[in-house]
């Protein structure tokens, strides 16, 4: 549960802040990723995540509660049918804020806030499976499943780290390969 906001509201008044947050949340669900100031992004995060939690419950009562803030019916439909199933495995942490530096003009610190739509990493998934397995087999036999779980965890961790490192190296190395191409053409 996020703590209540202290200090001045966004935009100058409580009603204005509610409008700003509702509009930002609507745009976030529509476009999946929006650029705004850091202060607004930080306020938007708990607000949007509560709406996603309601969407994950998915019943009519929760849909009506979401409709109170997001007045665009198509966006609400998209939230309940596309975003909520994508977040089904995730326990919170539905959005990600990345700082992108000051804005030209008023030097305001800007950030990108986006929905975390990627599936859970292999490591997290295996850990969760293992926990389920231990919970299921705990009453039957306590010692043997624990050893198996530890082994799967270790292998999963190494497997998950290796592709991540590869992906990072690939994305960073890409711009450096371009100059060689340019020289070859010239």
């Amino acid at each position, binding site marked *: 549960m996020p703590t209540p906001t202290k200090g001045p509201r966004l935009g100058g008044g409580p009603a204005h802040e509610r409008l700003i947050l509702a509009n930002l949340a609507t745009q976030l669900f529509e476009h999946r990723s929006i650029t705004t100031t850091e202060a607004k992004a930080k306020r938007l995060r708990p607000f949007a995540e509560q709406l996603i939690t309601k969407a994950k419950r998915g019943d009519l009562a929760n849909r009506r509660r979401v409709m109170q803030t997001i007045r665009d019916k198509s966006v609400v439909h998209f939230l309940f049918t596309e975003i909520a199933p994508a977040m089904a495995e995730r326990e919170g942490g539905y959005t990600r804020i990345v*700082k*992108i530096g000051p804005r030209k003009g008023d030097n305001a610190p800007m950030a990108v806030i986006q929905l975390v739509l990627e599936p859970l990493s292999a490591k997290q998934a295996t850990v969760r499976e293992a926990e389920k397995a231990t919970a299921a087999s705990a009453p039957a036999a306590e010692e043997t499943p624990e050893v198996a779980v530890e082994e799967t965890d270790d292998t999963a961790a190494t497997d998950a780290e290796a592709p991540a490192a590869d992906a990072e190296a690939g994305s960073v190395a890409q711009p450096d390969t371009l100059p060689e191409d340019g020289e070859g053409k010239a």
Partner: protein
Amino acid sequence: MAVPKRKMSRSNTRSRRAQWKASEPTLTTTVERGQVVHARPHQARVVTDSAGTPLYLEYKGRKVKDL
């Protein structure tokens, strides 16, 4: 309405303005492929092509935003 009684001297003006100072930004220093790279901490960085044209913003190996 309050108004200044005397003209502000050039000396006083320049003394005041001499106190305007730029603060150093905090930077992280990393070595990438043999080159020392300075960057703002916890902030996305711009990936450019060979001509220096900005392509997109990247943070922790993840594409953040197109430019």
